[in-house]
Every structure is written in structure tokens, then in C-alpha cells.
């Protein structure tokens, strides 16, 4: 068998396979049986939202209410303009997996070209991500991954590494204060139990601290549901109880979006020697840290998330190769020595 003949036969086999796959789809859809009990009112969808001529990429954050994502949105929009891509920003007002799923469903119906999503619950969102992929939509994740889904790539922080950095910061602070030999009571704040990124941070933190010889006793875990409005209140309320922690660790910067003055109890606790370590280095968090509400911060780069998500998804839509299934946006480390400097490089939010 010569080489040409072999390729001809292979092409023929592929052709038959393509026909076998395509033909069942050409049979037309089987009309659904009309439901006798359904009223005669017909509901038509406003299906004119997305014109077909431009590439549209929808970014789906965990919530609209959480300003940390706004950097990603703005950078995404900027990159979108550069690339001639229409960038959309759709998400639940407050973190809600079901609404997030409904939004992805709507994007599938609207046949957008790409979706970048920060997954609230990786397990629950996985089927709809796979559905979108099956519908021919390029899907990626940012900030919070759904690793078991068929998404193209994850663009964001190495969350475990962020946790490790926080753990190392704790070891350093504990040693500096001579508390590394005793059992430290730990108060944790996170958004929810499901978020993959937050759980990774938490695991990285706990494992690193323990490996570093710090004995931690978790006295409570506060779930703020990604709501910056209640996170500060939750923290302040807890700190005023008798169950006072030695260490406070938050997988995100939610409690410091509120003005530092609204956390007097926590401020006093910090002054009394409490160790406060958080993930995130956006403006209000750094501002609060500078005022003495945090000892160490490990920041994420949401700008990069927005930029790299759109750029790489655009590549994928154009049929180009994606460099990796994990696009690391890096970490920003902050402590009392560089809080002021970091703050200088940030823009005031003026939104809360």
C-alpha cells in the first residue's frame, strides 16, 4: 500500500464518520407533544440581544456586588476593544450558583462565542459548562476554577500558592511575636464551602502553617457568601464575643471593603496582638491594612485575569493554540513594610 492510497482511504473513512455524525442531526427536530394543560399564551424570547456579526465574549463573575471583580471587567473591556470583541459582564447580583447557571444557559441560547466564568460551585456549574462547550462555545474559567469540567483553561491566581504565602506569613508573624510554640486559636472567613479557589487557599494556608510548626485550633469559620456588605459586620460581631481568636485568616478581602472605622472591635483586637492575614490587595484592603487591620496580605491580579482571559479565549475562538490550561496571574505580597508603597500604585475605588 503506497502512502497516497492510505491517505485517500483514511479521508474516505473520515468522510463516512462525518456523515454518520451529521446525518441524524439533519432529520429535523421532533416536535414536542403539545401540552394539553398549557395555556395558549406563547412566550417568545427576546432573542435579539446579541447580533451575530461581532465576536462576543461574556465574563461571568461570582457576583456583581463584589467589586474585586471590577478590575477584571475593566481590563477585559479594554482588551476587548483592542481585539474588536464585545465583552459582556453577566452575573448574579449576590453570589448564587443557580442564577449563575441560568446566566450560562442564557448565553448558550444567545450563542455567544466565548464564556469566562468564575465558578461559585465547581461541581454544580460543571454540567452547564460542558453543555456550552458542546454547543460550540469556547469556555474558560477565571478566579475560581471548575477543574473537572471541559473548560479550555483556568486563568487566575495559583490559589494554593496564595494560601501557602499566607501560611508562611503567619509563621513569620508568630515567630516574631513569640507565639509559634503555643496553640493559636484561628478564626477563618471565606465565601462559602464550595468555591474551589477559596478552599485551595485555605488548604495551602493551613497545611503550610502546620508544616511550619504552628498549632492551630479553628474556633469558627465565617461564611460571608461573597457579600462585602455583611462580611465586616460578621467579623466585628464575632470579635466582640468572648471566643476571641489569636489569628484571623480570610480567603478574600471582603471584610475590609467596609470603612476601617466600622470595625473598631477588630481594630482593638489587632492592637492587642491579634494576627490578621488576608488574601487580596485591592485598594480598600490595603487602606485598612495600612491603618493596622492586617499584618500580611497576599494579592491577586484581577487586571491580569481580565486581560489574559479575553486574550486567550479570543485566540481559542480564532482557532489558535492556548499556551496552557492554567494561566497564572501571579501573586502580590504585602506586609507592614510595603503597604504604603503598594497603596500608591492602586486606584481609589470610590464605589463603596
Amino acid at each position: 500500500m503506497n502512502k497516497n492510497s492510505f491517505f485517500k482511504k483514511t479521508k474516505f473513512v473520515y468522510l463516512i464518520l462525518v456523515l454518520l455524525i451529521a446525518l441524524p442531526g439533519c432529520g429535523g427536530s421532533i416536535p414536542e407533544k403539545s401540552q394539553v394543560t398549557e395555556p395558549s399564551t406563547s412566550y417568545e424570547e427576546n432573542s435579539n440581544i446579541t447580533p451575530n456579526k461581532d465576536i462576543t465574549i461574556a465574563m461571568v463573575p461570582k457576583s456583581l456586588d463584589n467589586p474585586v471583580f471590577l478590575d477584571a471587567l475593566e481590563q477585559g473591556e479594554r482588551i476587548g476593544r483592542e481585539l474588536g470583541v464585545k465583552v459582556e459582564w453577566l452575573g448574579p447580583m449576590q453570589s448564587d450558583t443557580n442564577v449563575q447557571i441560568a446566566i450560562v444557559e442564557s448565553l448558550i441560547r444567545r450563542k455567544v462565542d466565548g464564556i469566562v466564568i468564575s465558578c461559585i460551585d465547581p461541581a454544580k456549574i460543571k454540567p452547564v459548562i460542558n453543555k456550552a462547550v458542546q454547543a460550540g462555545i469556547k469556555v474558560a474559567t477565571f478566579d475560581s476554577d471548575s477543574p473537572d469540567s471541559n473548560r479550555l483553561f483556568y486563568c487566575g491566581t495559583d490559589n494554593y500558592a496564595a494560601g501557602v504565602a499566607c501560611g508562611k506569613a503567619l509563621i513569620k508573624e508568630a515567630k516574631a511575636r513569640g507565639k509559634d510554640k503555643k496553640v493559636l486559636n484561628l478564626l477563618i472567613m471565606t465565601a462559602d464551602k464550595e468555591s474551589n479557589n477559596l478552599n485551595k487557599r485555605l488548604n495551602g494556608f493551613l497545611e503550610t502553617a502546620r508544616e511550619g510548626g504552628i498549632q492551630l485550633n479553628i474556633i469558627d469559620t465565617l461564611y460571608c457568601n461573597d457579600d462585602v456588605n455583611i462580611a465586616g459586620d460578621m467579623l466585628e460581631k464575632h470579635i466582640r464575643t468572648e471566643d476571641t481568636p489569636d489569628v484571623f485568616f480570610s480567603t478574600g478581602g471582603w471584610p475590609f471593603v467596609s470603612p476601617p472605622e466600622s470595625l473598631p472591635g477588630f481594630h482593638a483586637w489587632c492592637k492587642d496582638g491579634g494576627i490578621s492575614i488576608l488574601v487580596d490587595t485591592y485598594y480598600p484592603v490595603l487602606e485598612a491594612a495600612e491603618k493596622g487591620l492586617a499584618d500580611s496580605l497576599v494579592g491577586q491580579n484581577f487586571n491580569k485575569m481580565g486581560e489574559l482571559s479575553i486574550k486567550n479565549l479570543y485566540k481559542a475562538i480564532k482557532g489558535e493554540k492556548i499556551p496552557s490550561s492554567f494561566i497564572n496571574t501571579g501573586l502580590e505580597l504585602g506586609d507592614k513594610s510595603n503597604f504604603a508603597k503598594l497603596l500608591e500604585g492602586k486606584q481609589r475605588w470610590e464605589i463603596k
Partner: protein
Amino acid sequence: MKDNFFKKFSIYSIRSKMTICFLALGLIPILVFGFISYHLYLLNLHKNVANYSEQVIERVDKNLETYISDIENIMRLKSNYYFQQYSKLNETGDIEGNRKYIVRIWETFDSLKQMKTDLVDIRYISSSGSAISCYGRYWGDLTTEPLYGELVTKKNDVVAIQPPHLNILNKKVFSIGQAVNRTAKGDMGIMAIDIDVNFLKKICSDIKLGDTGFVFFEKDGKVVFTPESSDKPGLSNIITQNTKLINSKNGNLIESINNTNYIITYKTSDITRWKIIGVTPEAEMTREVSTLREVFFWIITLIIIIILLLTIYLTSVLTNPMRKLRSIMKQASENDLSIYADIRTRDEIGQLASSFNKMMNQIRELMDKVKDDQQKIRVMEMKAMQELIKPHFVYNTLDSIIGLLEQNRNEDAIDIVDSLGKFFRTSLSHGREVVFIREEIDHIRSYLMIQQFRFSYKFDYLFEIDDGIYNFKTVKLILQPLVENSIYHGIRNLDKKGLIVINGYLKDD
């Protein structure tokens, strides 16, 4: 036919007639009253149902109007400072500068959603197609928005209503929109508020139109919204095709669909231009009437029974004396004159019985008198016979006959026997008291012939009778005493032969 009826009616007994009359008198007014009342009630009920449905629809319209007014107030958001800044910066493409306003708008939208739970989404779509809503920011084509087509021709403050449809998240909503930021060139954006269709369901389910009646909305011959639980398949669609409904803004009608009558009341909403249609199955509204009809039927039945029992009792009370009297009269007619009507009522029947008793007494007295008179007549007749046929006369005549026979004068003997026979026959005259003059003359002739023989022809006799009087009548045996007296007191004492002349003539008229 009328005569026929009365003929038939006349053959019934008084008792039957009275029963029929009592029933008729009792039932006819009740039936007439019942029939008129029923129809008046039904008419009134229809009016009331229509009025009630109109009120219900009016309430639905008011609720809808109030709600839409509230939504119009929310639309004032378009004048809000943050919104205006957002619009401007959005159009200029200032990403960084707009962050603050985007967040503010989302917060405002969310607050409004929290306050008004029926709101599903609030969205603003700019003329460039960039949209901001409760779910974020996206891109759309404004010109293909259903609300755009309507609003582009309207004034700025006018709202347009989009019938129920699926929103971006596939939720069933209806939308209210208003033009925003209209430029001199005609460019404009739209502020649209999506409201959960459950709101329509809620305002529809707040009302009650019988057990299965319902309210739905229609526009341009199409069903806008109908509550799923209430609508029978296709019923709303059929109703919307009614020409009267299509051609008029407000009104009511009755339509028969699948053998069921529906009272349909409708009103066109001034704001939405939707027809609010109330559908009430007539049977449910007239169920009360059916109960009434049933009650009426049982009342009538009860009344009939009562009337029947009363009629039987009353007719018995009234006709029993009559029937008793009739029976007594029948007995009387069968020759029982001893009967007595024992009826003690003081009414006409009692008076009739009393009269009957009097009559019977008189009959009895008369009968006794007649009997007595007859007995007397018999005695008299016997006496008269005895007077007439005196034994002496008979003996002498018989002796004369014997004498003739001894003398072998048989012919004479036969003549006398013949005359004697005629004499007796005429004397008896079958008991008649009045006879023809001819018979009386024949009687006297026989008598004279016998006496002539007995007195040996000592006298002759002559009859001078006018022929014209023979057929007149006279009391019988009136002449015999006269003739006898003329023989015994006249002829017998004569020495010579005497003559007895008997004249008979007609005197005057």
C-alpha cells in the same frame, strides 16, 4: 273546543269539579308568581353577574394601572444623577470613569428589586446597543427590541407595554418601557422593566368569578396572558375570536363554547391597551337559581299535596250532605216515602234537606188523603150500585123473565135479558163517572124497556134528542132517578096508559 271542554267538565261530579277548581285556584297564582319571580330573578342575576364582573375587571384594571404608575415612577431613575453620568461615560467609552456609576446603578437596581419583588430585571439599552441590567452588562440590537418599535413613535414620557415573553434568563415576564435620552437626530435608548408574569397571575387570582371563572388579557386578537390553572385548553383563544369582543372596547356577552355558556365581560385598559376579559361559567352563577328552582319545585309539590288534602277534606265536608241527600232522594224515588233527610247544616244544603223533608211530609199526607178518598169513593160507588141496582128491581125483573120463559116467550125474555145486561154495563161504565150523552140515553132506554115490560106496557116512551148533543158528556145515571120518579110517582098511579117523553137539546152555547 271551549264547548267541548265545558261538556267534558260538566260530566264530572261536583266533588271532582271542586277538586279541580281548588287545585286551579291554589296552583295557578303560585305557578304564575313563581314563573314571573324566577325569570325576574334570573334576569336580575345576569345583571348582577355582569355588574360584578365589570367591577372585578375594573379592579384588575385599577391594580394594573396602579402598578404601572409605580413602575413609571421607577422610570424616573432615568433622570437620576448616577444614571445620567453612566449614560454619558458609557457613550464616550470611559471605562475607568464609569466604574463608580456602574456599581451605583447595579445597587439601585438591586434595591428596587428588593423593594418590589415582582421586578425581575431593570435594564437600560443605549442607542449603541450597550445594555446594563440587574444581571450585568451586555450587548444588544436596540432596533429589534419589541419595545423600541412602539416607543420610537411615541412621546418621551409615554410608556409601552410588551406582552409576556421570556427574558434573558428565560423567565416569563412582561415589560414596561420608556424612551430615554432621545436626541434631536432621533437616536434614543430604552429603559425597560421586566415584571414577573406571576404578578398578572396574582392580580388575576385575587379576584373570584365563581369556582372556575377567571380573568385573562388579550391584545389584537391574541392572548396576552391567561392563568394556567384556570384556563381550559384553548378557551381563551376561542373567546378572543368573538367578533363583538374584537369590535368593541368594553361590554359583555354570553358565548356558548363546547355546550357551556360563559358570561364574558371585557374592558380595554387605557394604559396597556390590553383587553381585560372576565370569564364566568353561567352554570356556576345560576347554581343558586338551580337551588331556588329545586326549592320552588318542592314547595310547589308540598303545596299541591296540602291543596289536595284540603280539597279532599273540604269537598268531603261540602259534598257529603249533598251526596247523602242524593242517596235519600234516590231511595225516595224508589217509593220509599218513609225516608227522612237527617242533615243538620244551616247552609243551602241544610235548607234543601229541610224543604225535601217538608215535601216528603206533604207527599205522605197527600198519599194518605188519596188513599182515604179512594176508599170513600169505593164505598160511595158500592152505595150507588146498591142504590142503582135495587134488589127489588132486580128480583121483579128476574121474576118477569122467569114468567116469560114459562110462557115460552123466549124472544121477549131474550130482549129483557139483553136490556138488563146493557143496563148493568152502562151502570158500571168501567168505573167512569162521566159518560157520553149517547151512552146515558142507551142506559135509560134499557131501563125504560125493562120497566115497560114490568109495568105491562102501561106507558110508552119517547126520545126527542137532538143529534148534536150525543157526543157531549154528562155525569152518568143522571137521568135514571128522573125516569124512575116519573114511573113510580106518575105513571103507576094512572088509570090509563102513560107516556114518558125524554127531551134532549142544546141550550145556548
